[in-house]
């Protein structure tokens, strides 16, 4: 289980850190394996920050990150690298998700090499995963600026799935894609979660997507988690006024 316990994060800017911006405040959230947890909230409410903290791309100001019972919060980066394989993140903007200098294949190989897969097995692995994520093989020698957003996102999935992660943080992975591609990728992610027992934290502001994808939902506003519960319950009878308002607005 990936647990985020009472996470707070403040950003300090300006001279000697005079301006303090509280991005996340006392957020507690856990993701079990095989479960998809939705995190909704408007832009700037701190949901992406929380996602980045979960993979330790950002350090929390206070609070604990517990990965399968191991407290990894203060673990030095060098030791944490072994755990990186277990928790992966996918970002929103496909156009900057891969380095424009390299072809899709080179970017994918980057992750294969990290795991240390021998060159002789890399081809089979690529065939396997690309079939799973529907990545057309005739485009893998192109650069990211020569393929579509959906194709990049599939390449990113190939890169990440190679790690066989136990947990995936999805930071609005489909919000920049067109509807049909979005549906494909969402199906694929859902299948992956159930089949391979991957726990997912699905960050989005799209209520429909959350409703279709998630087992549980948490609502975030101004850095706090207001409410958390099963998807059906949350959508039928929300307790917090904010969630009610969101539902009304989306209708």
């Amino acid at each position, binding site marked *: 289980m990936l647990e985020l316990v009472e996470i707070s994060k403040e950003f300090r800017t300006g001279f000697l850190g005079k301006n303090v911006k509280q991005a996340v405040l006392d957020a507690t959230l856990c993701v079990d394996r095989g479960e998809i947890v939705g995190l909704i909230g408007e832009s700037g409410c701190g949901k992406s920050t929380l996602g*980045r903290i979960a*993979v330790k*791309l950002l350090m929390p100001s206070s609070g604990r990150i517990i990965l399968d019972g191991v407290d990894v919060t203060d673990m030095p980066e060098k030791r944490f*690298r*072994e755990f*990186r*394989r277990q928790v*992966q*993140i*996918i*970002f*929103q*903007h496909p*156009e*900057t*998700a*891969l*380095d*424009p*200098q*390299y*072809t899709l*294949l*080179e*970017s994918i190989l*980057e*992750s294969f090499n*990290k795991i240390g897969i021998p060159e002789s097995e890399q*081809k089979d692995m*690529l*065939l396997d995963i690309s079939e799973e994520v529907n990545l057309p*093989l*005739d485009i*893998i*020698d192109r*650069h990211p*600026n020569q393929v579509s957003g959906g194709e990049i996102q599939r390449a*990113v999935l190939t*890169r990440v799935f190679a*790690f066989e992660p136990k947990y995936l943080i999805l930071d609005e992975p489909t919000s920049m894609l067109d509807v049909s591609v979005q549906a494909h990728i969402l199906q694929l992610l859902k299948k992956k979660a159930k089949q391979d027992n991957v726990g997912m934290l699905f960050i989005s502001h799209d209520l429909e997507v959350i409703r279709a994808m998630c087992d549980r939902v948490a609502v975030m506003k101004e850095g706090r988690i207001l409410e958390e519960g099963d998807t059906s319950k949350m959508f039928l009878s929300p307790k917090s006024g904010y969630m009610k308002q969101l539902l009304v607005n989306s209708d």
Partner: protein
Amino acid sequence: MQRAASICEVLKNMEIIERKWFRSLNIGRFTEQIPFSPIKTIGISILIALVFIAIAAPYIAPHDPEKTGIPYQSPSTDHFLGTNDLGQDIFSELLYASRTSLVVGFLAAIISIVIGVSVGLMAGYYRGWVGELLMGMTDVFLLIPGLPLMIILAAYLSPSMWNIIPVIGLLWWCSTARVVHSRVLQVREMQFIESTRALGYSDSYILHKHVLANTKEVIYAKFSLAVASAMLAEASLSFLGLGDPLNISWGEMIHFAFTRGGFANDMWWWYLPPGLMICITVLAFVLITMESRKESRLVELI
């Protein structure tokens, strides 16, 4: 039947991958990355010609540039550009001087680029107090009036080429540092940096493979301009008489033309050619950098 078809499909895919694999690991890609551009080609050809002249000077120079003869001769078939006050052949001197000018230009530019890129990269990538300190230092260096300080340093140190190179190099890195710094700030905010870190790669790998790779066209452009400005700086110093008297450069040729009666006697064949050579060389470097920004893959994202 269906099974056979799917096996066929897989085999076809295998073949495709095999081919792409080969291509993506092949150096052949290096050439296809550089699109043909006439302006760049002109610049590169001029540069190759200049380097050839510098290397082959002893074989193509008609006279020994040190050998004295009848002074102040006008251009003739024997002496294309006449002779100077000591009767040395100016054309041969011009060919030999390209060696000093190019060596000073390249070495000083390499020093300035190495310092500038390291400072800009570190300051941009680590930010925080490291960045503040490094960029503060850069600002201080930028505030120092370069040419006067160079003149003072060059005057105090013995007038040798090997003193002039580090003096120019150490004073010319600031603008490179600034440009690299601002590009690194843009690159480090991109998601591929974060996702590579999430894969578990170290900072040095990310710096080298992703940050530097996306900064390289700025560095190439800056290097090329640094060579040009280092050559101009060397020419200014030499013109002021602070050059290396044992290794005559183009700037020094103008200096001698000025102090030994070339200008007074209106001997244009003495002072004009070295000036033109400086112009042509600087122009060649500028032409090379001219179109590189358009080719950048990263710029499309910014």
